[in-house]
């Protein structure tokens, strides 16, 4: 099944296939995190704008004090607008090619684009997600959205079994015609609960769509892709 499915099918006749439903579900989770984060920025902007109004109306402050505090408030609003705008650009970049089929992709670039959402997913469990981009690795031939969904699902699944304050580092490396994406955690995993968010079968099916292999390593998970042209 996975050999014949690509992301072009998401909007087409195979939209209801199990693998495509998984991709849509994961994309939905990414969008949900985005909405939550954007809403946080809007709440901060709303409160600071309200505070500026309160300060203008306040009688206890001198004009100089009001100007100083209002200036700080406007500075915060500007910072939050910039953060929200940056987040929007990332989501737009992901969403803008949901209907594209196989392309050449740079694993580090695709992971960088996903990082705000991975960080947010980790933060819910007090886990820190880091991306360590090293030397440039060869490109992969595959669907970037499926690649990002696979990384997202793997990180969520890995975090499920980890304790607070763990750092998960994502790295990309190349070896003998392969690109290796590693997810490694610095603290040992405590007892796992049994409620897997993404089943092993689901993860393997996503990996198969990218002709990749998943293997568990000591302290993490590894994905092995065939580099383009090898």
């Amino acid at each position, binding site marked *: 099944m996975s050999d014949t499915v690509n992301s072009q099918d998401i909007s087409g006749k195979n939209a209801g296939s199990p693998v495509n439903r998984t991709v849509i579900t994961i994309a939905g989770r990414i969008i949900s995190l985005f*909405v*939550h984060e954007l*809403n*946080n920025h*809007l*709440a*901060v*902007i*709303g*409160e*600071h704008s*309200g*505070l500026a109004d*309160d300060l203008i109306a*306040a009688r206890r402050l001198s004009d100089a004090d009001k100007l100083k505090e209002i200036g700080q408030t406007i500075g*915060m609003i500007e910072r*939050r607008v910039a953060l929200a705008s940056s987040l929007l650009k990332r989501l737009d970049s992901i969403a803008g090619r949901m209907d594209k089929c196989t392309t050449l992709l740079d694993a580090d670039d695709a992971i960088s684009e996903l990082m705000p959402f991975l960080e947010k997913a980790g*933060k*819910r*469990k*007090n886990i820190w997600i880091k991306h360590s981009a090293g030397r440039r690795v060869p490109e992969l031939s595959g669907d970037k959205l499926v690649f990002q969904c696979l990384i997202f699902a793997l990180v969520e699944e890995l975090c499920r079994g980890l304790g*607070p304050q763990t750092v998960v580092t994502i790295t990309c490396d190349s070896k003998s015609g392969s690109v290796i994406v590693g997810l490694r955690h610095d603290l040992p995993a405590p007892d796992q609960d049994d409620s897997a968010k993404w089943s092993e079968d689901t993860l393997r099916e996503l990996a198969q769509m990218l002709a990749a292999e998943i293997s568990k390593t000591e302290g993490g998970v590894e994905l092995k892709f065939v580099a383009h042209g090898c």
Partner: protein
Amino acid sequence: MSKARVMIVDDELDFARTLASRLQIRGYEAHVVESFDKTIEIAQELKPEVVLLDLRLPGISGVEILMTIRQFCPGTEVILLTGHLNLEQTIEGVRLDSFHFIMKPFDIAELVQKIDALRRTNV
């Protein structure tokens, strides 16, 4: 009646501190706590009448937080501050009989009205 003592539990400090300032301007005694670890200890010390609680604190579910506050601070009213509620949280919140909530972003007048109404109920 004097203004209420309010505790804001939210890891988004820019939001929580600004909200506290706005409540203070309106005469409320407002305190900010950024993590759940410190919530119970500080709540027992400050004895807030109302806790404004972010439902999504890192490392703990909103339902666990609610249950703990109910257990250790039984007289304290809780208003949930949330960006969105899912069905599970809604059902659990109703079950815990703790379900006063306000969606972020909100109007301060609406929040103040809720705080005062809860306080009047308790007097």
